[in-house]
C-alpha cells in the first residue's frame, strides 16, 4: 500500500467499556481495551478471536452503535464524531453485515421495501430510478430481480445473507464490516458468501473488516490478520506472516485448532480451558493461565509490550522480548 492513499479506517487506542451493576457495586467490563489499527481501501483485515474477546464490541463501536469510552475512530481521515462525519455521512461511509441473516431482515417488509429504504433516505437516486437500482443491487449479489417482490421468509440463509449484503451496499459504502457473516450458514454455503464478498471487494474497491471466531474462514480472504484476545490485539500481520510464522502462542493454538490447516510447528499447540472473563482479567499477560510457555514475567505487570517482528508483523508476548530460560 502506498503511503499517499488515506486509510479507509483508522482506529487509535480504542476502549469500549460496559458498567455492570450488581447490588451496590459497579464493575467495569473492558470489552475493548486499547485497540489500534488501520484499514486501507480495497483491503481485507481478518479479525479472529474466541467469543467474548471483544470483536463484536469493536465492530459496534466502529459502527457507532456503542459509544467508545476513549480513543478515536477516523473514516477516510475524518474523525467519526458528530462534528466531522456523523449520522448519515457515517452511515454512507461504513456499513455492516450481521451474523444472523434470519433476524437481520425485517420480516414484514418485501425485499423491494427493504432495499428502497436506504436509497430514499440517503437520496441516492431519483425515485424513477429506484427500481433499476434495486435490480442492479440484486444482480450484484447474484439474485434474480423477482426476489424484490418476496418477503424474507421465502429465502434461505445464504440468500438472506446476500440480501443483507445488498442492503449494506445500497448506500455505496467504502467500508464493510462483516460480523461473523458465515457463522450461521451451512458449511456448503459459506464458500459462496466468502467468494461473493471477495468479488465485491475487488469490483467495488471495498475495505473489508472480516470478523470471525474461525481462523479457517478468515485465512482464505484476508490480506492482513489480527488476532484478538480479551480486548487486545495480540498479533497482527500480513496473512502469510501470521499463518506461516505465528509469533504468539495463542495464534499457534488457534492455528492448531483449525482442521486441515497448515499446522504451525513448535510448542504451544494445545490450549485448555476457556477464556477468562473480561470482568476479572488475570494480571500480566491475559493469556498466561492457558499458555503452555508462560514464565515469570507473564504473570505480573500490565501485560507484554508490542514487539515488531518484521515489516507489518507485530505481536504482544514476553517470549519475543526475553529469552526463555532453558
Amino acid at each position: 500500500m502506498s503511503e499517499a492513499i488515506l486509510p479507509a479506517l483508522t482506529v487509535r487506542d480504542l476502549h469500549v467499556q460496559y458498567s455492570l451493576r450488581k447490588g451496590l457495586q459497579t464493575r467495569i467490563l473492558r470489552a475493548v481495551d486499547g485497540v489500534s489499527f488501520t484499514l486501507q481501501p480495497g483491503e481485507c483485515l481478518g479479525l479472529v478471536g474466541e467469543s467474548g474477546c471483544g470483536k463484536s464490541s469493536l465492530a459496534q463501536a466502529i459502527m457507532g452503535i456503542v459509544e467508545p469510552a476513549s480513543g478515536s475512530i477516523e473514516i477516510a481521515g475524518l474523525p467519526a464524531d458528530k462534528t466531522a462525519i456523523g449520522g448519515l455521512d457515517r452511515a454512507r461511509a461504513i456499513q455492516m453485515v450481521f451474523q444472523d441473516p434470519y433476524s437481520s431482515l425485517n420480516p414484514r417488509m418485501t425485499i423491494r421495501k427493504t432495499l428502497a429504504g436506504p436509497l430514499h433516505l440517503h437520496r441516492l437516486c431519483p425515485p424513477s430510478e429506484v427500481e433499476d437500482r434495486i435490480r442492479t443491487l440484486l444482480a450484484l449479489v447474484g439474485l434474480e430481480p423477482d426476489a424484490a417482490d418476496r418477503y424474507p421468509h421465502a429465502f434461505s440463509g445464504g440468500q438472506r445473507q446476500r440480501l443483507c449484503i445488498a442492503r449494506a451496499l445500497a448506500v455505496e459504502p467504502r467500508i464493510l464490516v462483516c460480523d461473523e457473516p458465515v457463522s450461521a450458514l451451512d458449511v456448503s454455503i459459506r464458500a459462496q458468501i466468502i467468494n461473493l464478498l471477495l468479488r465485491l471487494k475487488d469490483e467495488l474497491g471495498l475495505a473489508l473488516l472480516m470478523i470471525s471466531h474461525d481462523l479457517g474462514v478468515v485465512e482464505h480472504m484476508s490480506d492482513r490478520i489480527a488476532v484478538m484476545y480479551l480486548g487486545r490485539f495480540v498479533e497482527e500481520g500480513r496473512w502469510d506472516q501470521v499463518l506461516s510464522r505465528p509469533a504468539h502462542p495463542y495464534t499457534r493454538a488457534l492455528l492448531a485448532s483449525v482442521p486441515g490447516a497448515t499446522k504451525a510447528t513448535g510448542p504451544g499447540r494445545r490450549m485448555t480451558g476457556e477464556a477468562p472473563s473480561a470482568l476479572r482479567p488475570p494480571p500480566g499477560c491475559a493469556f498466561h493461565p492457558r499458555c503452555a510457555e508462560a514464565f515469570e514475567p507473564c504473570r505480573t505487570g500490565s501485560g507484554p509490550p508490542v514487539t515488531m517482528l518484521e515489516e507489518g508483523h507485530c505481536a504482544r508476548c514476553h517470549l519475543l522480548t526475553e529469552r526463555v530460560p532453558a
Partner: protein
Amino acid sequence: MQRFNLNFGLLVVAALVFVAAFAPFLAPYSPVDFADLRNSNLPPGGPFLMGTDEQGRDIFSRIIYGARISLLVGVVVQMMNTFVGVTLGLTAGYFGGWWDEFVQGLTNLMLAIPTIVFALALMTFLGPGLVSLLLALGLTDWAYSCRISRAQVLSQKEQNYVQAARTIGFGRGHVIFREILPNVAGPLVVVATMGVGSAILAEASLSFIGLGVVPPTPSWGGMLARAREQLMVAPWIAVFPGLALFITVLGFNMLGDGLRDLLDPQGRADR
C-alpha cells in the same frame, strides 16, 4: 370449527355496524319522539317487537339507535386508548431509562385504580355529555396496550433488523413506528379489539349511573338504568338492552380471539 370465533365475531360486528348505519331505515318508530303514555309497559308482541318502556317508547327502535352510541363510544374510545398506550409503550420499551420508569409507574398507577372509578372522577370534572364520555374513557384504559407494546418492543429491539435500520441511518421515529410497529401489530390488534367490548361496557356502566350519554338519547346503559325501576312489572325493558349488550361484547371478544389465532405468526402461511 377453528374459525368459529372469528366468524361469529365478524358476524356480530358486521351486524352492529349495519344496524348503526341504517338505524333510521330499520327502526319502525322514532326512538325519542314516539312516546305515548297510553302504550307504556306493553309486553313484546303485536306492533312492538320487544315491547315498550314506561314512557311508551318502542324498545326495539331504541335498541337500534342505541347501537350507534355503543359503536361510536366503543370504537373511538378504543382508538384513543390504543393510540396512547401504544405510543407510550413503544417509546418506553425502545428508549428505556427514566422515560421507561416513568411510563411504567404511570401504567401501574392506572392499573391500581379501577378504570371506571378513574373515568367517574374525570366525568364529574368534565360534566356529562358524549365528548366528556369519550375523553374520560379514552384516556383511562390504555394500561394493557401499553404493557403489551412495551414487552413486544423489548423482544424486537435486539433483533438485527433494528440494528441494521439504525446503521443505515434511519431515525428513531422511523425505527420505532415503521420497522418495529408492523412486527408487533398482531397482539396489539387483538388487545384493541377486545378492548372495544370493555369500552362499550364501561359506557353502559357510566350511562347506568347517569354520568354517560344524556337522556333522552337512547343508550343501552341508560335504558337499563330506567328499566331497574320496572323490573318486577315489565322485565322486557331490561332484558332486551341487556341481551344487545351481551351479544355485542361477546362478539368483539370472540373477534379478538379469532384474530389472535389468525395473526399468530406460527400459523401464518406464505403471503
